[in-house]
Each structure stands twice: as C-alpha cells, then as structure tokens.
C-alpha cells in the first residue's frame, strides 16, 4: 500500500484568502488525483495532475480557482484560491502505486469563515 501524507490536516481560513494543500507520496507515481468532499456529501474529482504537464480539470473546476503544481513524481499541491464559505470541504489526493488499488491521502479539512 501507499503512504500518502497531506498537509495541513485541517485549517480555518478567512474568505478571500488562499490555501495551498500538499500531497506527498512515498513512491513515484505518474498521476495524482485531487478530490473534494463537501460536508455530508460524496467525493467529486477536481483534477488530474501529471508530472511535467498542466493539470487537467473536470467540468465545473477551473485552474484560476484551483491551481495545481506537480514538480516531481512524489509531490503535488492544490491551491484553493479566493476562498468563500462554499469551499469548506475535505480535500483529498489519490494515487495508484502499482497494483490495482487507488489509495487516498489523509485529507485536509478546510473551513472558510
């Protein structure tokens, strides 16, 4: 299985500010995925991050709001920009490290006031 570390684990932010979430994996992976889980809801895919290329975003998500970096094969960041209370969610990264399973990070619980 993969060890996927996310930082911060939780944060409380003021509206209009930005937060960068880090995802670190203990092995090299080609693709990393970012998901959002709004309170009491299921998970929704935000974007796919490939090393060396721009992230690809799902419908309803845009780069200006959720810029993503992928500087190497073990690390990625997701920034939530110009936050509003509607951005309060758990943000999770996901990877597949060989094998068939897709693993999720510990998650970042974000509250926007």
């Amino acid at each position, binding site marked *: *299985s993969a060890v996927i570390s996310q930082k911060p684990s939780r944060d409380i932010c003021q509206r209009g500010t930005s937060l960068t979430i880090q995802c670190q994996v203990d092995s090299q992976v080609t*693709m990393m*995925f970012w998901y959002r889980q709004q309170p009491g809801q*299921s*998970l*929704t*895919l935000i974007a*796919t991050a490939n090393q060396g290329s721009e992230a690809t975003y799902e419908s309803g998500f845009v780069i200006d709001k959720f810029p993503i970096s992928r500087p190497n094969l073990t690390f990625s960041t997701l920034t939530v920009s110009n936050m509003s209370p509607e951005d309060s969610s758990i943000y*999770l990264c*996901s990877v*597949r490290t060989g094998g*068939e*399973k*897709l*693993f*999720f*990070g*510990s*998650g970042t*619980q974000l509250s926007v006031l």
Partner: protein
Amino acid sequence: ELKVEQNPLFLSMQEGKNYTIYCNYSTTSDRLYWYRQDPGKSLESLFVLLSNGAVKQEGRLMASLDTKARLSTLHITAAVHDLSATYFCAPRRYNTDKLIFGTGTRLQVFP
C-alpha cells in the same frame, strides 16, 4: 457521462443480520472500487472488482460486479458494530484512474 446511484443512503441494522448495498452506474466501466469511510477520516480501500462476475470477500463483507447490468453489490453478513461507517462505490471512467463516486451508504449497526 458516468453517473452512479447507490442505495440505500442510510442503513440501520441490528447486529447479526445480513444486508446488501446496491451500486448502479450509467455507462461502461471496466473497474469498480469499494471504500469505507469512518467519520472525520479518509477513505479505506476495501475491494477492487476488475471484471464481469468478479466476487471478492474480506471478513463479513463480500462485493460482486455485474458489468452487463452495470451493478455492483456489497453484502454484509452477520453485521457487527465495527462495521458502522459510510461505504462508497466508485466505478472508474473507462481505462482511466478517475473515479466517479456514488452517494455513499451510511451504515449503522446496533446491538
């Protein structure tokens, strides 16, 4: 567009009883995942179902996949309190690792 329906949304069951959670999806998918989530926690991988007719079992949980019917089931046998959690099914978009999650089934097992 791949859409996923899961039912029931909420399941309250007595210890020792059996029950099944259903996961229907709308278009072709070549792989389906089941996850467990405890309150305030991340997702724990339970099963990956790779082909039509696949059946996997772990302890009191058994998952199956019928790709022709676009249906997966998670069967709970002789439920115990420790199984209380939210269970998600997630078929993947064909030939990608992008998962589309169901609504989740919140399971509560009581004595």
